């Protein structure tokens, strides 16, 4: 039998994310953002990280604000419903953060190239744009067949992908549903994988539906149980998006001082998912709970 990969979140981050790591996270854009794991990076004072992801929706800003980040490879760093993010702005404008500018498509292709095991992927986007000026992993090239002008996107192979999803077994086999963004490609492309899951389930819950598996479990290094680990982003099947959380963060992160207060309250004082849900409070969790359920029809994998 395979060995259990179930670890406390703190140990998973400690063991598989050394300083200097490149980390793919926030891969499904607005949904399934691994906030609990991101906050653990902050608590453990990780340094010189490279963060990789399409749009991030405030998680990158939080990790940048805590001083953990050396470089960003992303298409958009901000707060989807309020706009710019302040820690990110401060870091770029002061010159302390290296930036590799992608579009969503070039980042998707960079991870897909990594997933496919090829050194680059061609694309038709971004031609004529200035992304080429601030991203040396984009080059123009000529198609060997059609002589079309193309954008070559260099492969990305993150050291670790951190993925929050709905349910996993202790062996690293896991289900995600909803929009999947770059999750599947990033898992294939990355050297290590850490999964945080709303639920740890019996192995047969996963193995009775292998099409819903996100990546083969033998490639997963750690599984951590993290209920509400995606909050304030939405997790299909578990809770709705906490819009107020994103709106509040705009004010909370406006200055370095207010950000420190936010960090004390939401990160430093939290030592477990139980702490986090206590802080969140039953009332707020109830407000975010699903009120309209909609269950998938079963399918038969028998023989």
């Amino acid at each position: 039998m395979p060995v259990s990969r179930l670890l406390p979140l703190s140990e998973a981050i400690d063991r598989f994310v050394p300083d200097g790591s490149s980390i793919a996270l926030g891969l499904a854009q607005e949904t399934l953002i691994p906030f609990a794991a991101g906050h653990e990076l902050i608590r453990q004072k990780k340094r010189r990280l490279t963060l990789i992801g399409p749009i991030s929706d405030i998680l990158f800003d939080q990790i940048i604000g805590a001083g953990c980040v050396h470089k960003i490879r992303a298409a958009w760093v901000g707060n989807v419903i309020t706009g710019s993010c302040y820690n990110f702005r401060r870091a770029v404008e002061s010159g302390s953060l290296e930036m590799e500018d992608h579009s969503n498509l070039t980042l998707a292709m960079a991870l897909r190239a990594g997933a496919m095991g090829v050194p680059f992927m061609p694309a038709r986007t971004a031609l004529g744009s200035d992304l080429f000026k601030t991203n040396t992993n984009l080059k123009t090239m000529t198609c060997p067949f059609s002589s079309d002008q193309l954008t070559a996107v260099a492969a990305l192979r993150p050291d670790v992908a951190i993925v929050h999803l709905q349910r996993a077994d202790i062996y690293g086999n896991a289900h995600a549903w909803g929009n999947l963004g770059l999750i599947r490609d990033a898992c294939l492309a990355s050297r290590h994988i850490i999964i945080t899951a709303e639920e740890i389930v019996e192995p047969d819950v996963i193995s009775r539906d292998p099409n819903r598996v996100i990546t083969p479990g033998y490639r997963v290094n750690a599984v951590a149980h993290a209920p509400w680990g995606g909050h304030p982003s939405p997790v299909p099947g578990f809770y709705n998006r906490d819009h107020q959380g994103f709106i509040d963060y705009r004010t909370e992160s406006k200055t370095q001082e207010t950000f420190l207060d936010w960090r004390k309250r939401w990160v430093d004082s939290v030592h477990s998912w139980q702490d986090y849900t206590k802080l969140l409070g039953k009332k707020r969790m109830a407000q975010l709970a699903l009120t309209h359920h909609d269950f998938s029809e079963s399918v038969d994998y028998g023989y």
Partner: protein
Amino acid sequence: MSYTLPELMVTAAAREVADGEVVFVGMRLPLLGFLLAKSTHAPEAVGIYELGIVRDTLAPEPILTMGDLPNLYRARWLADTADMMGLLQQGQVDVSFIGGAQIDRFGNLNTSYIGGAENVTTRLPGSGGACDLASLAQRHIIIMNHQKRRFVPQVDYITSPGYGTGTGWRRKVGLPRGGPTTVITTMGVLQFDPQSREMILVSVHPGISQETVQDNTGWPLQIAEELTQTPKPTENELAMLRRFDPQRYWTGP
């Protein structure tokens, strides 16, 4: 019925969608524009969302972001970003909407670096999917605040390509199709000269004069021969819109 400026803009955006079209739906106002089109004159429009959603029905509840769970509920397809980008890159997207912080006379957009990448004064969030939509949709619509500091002769950084330096530029750099057709601003609606590819003011919003638009534009603005007034939202459009944004988060005064 009174309306707000964002409501006027969203309504103008919605009217750009023809029935049955495939729309690549962006965040914020474009999200509302698509919902409004879908619920009025374009019931058969199909929405593609970059995070991995295809849907051709309205979400059952108001949504603020494309990832809100009602937008996933009974979607036609939930899949990977790469799948959505494949449809876009193939040319299967008729129209898309993007916003911008800085625009020039040829419709190039900057949402990355004010001051340019070398001497950045303000770092903006970046492209997201905007560069891709501007590069690869059959056409794209831009939604902007109309201010002189935003309407500049030349953008500091091209995040999302418009017509570059004018006629023939897109073909020259290798873009396979597309380009901006309409810019909907807080003051009016602009289109592009089919020859020169330069922006032309075609309508002003009620209460806005041609001169005010020029004063807020950083270059001598071309004006259409028959300058019109942007049509106001109808009562039906407003009613729909307020259903999608009941707390007036995006379309409040």
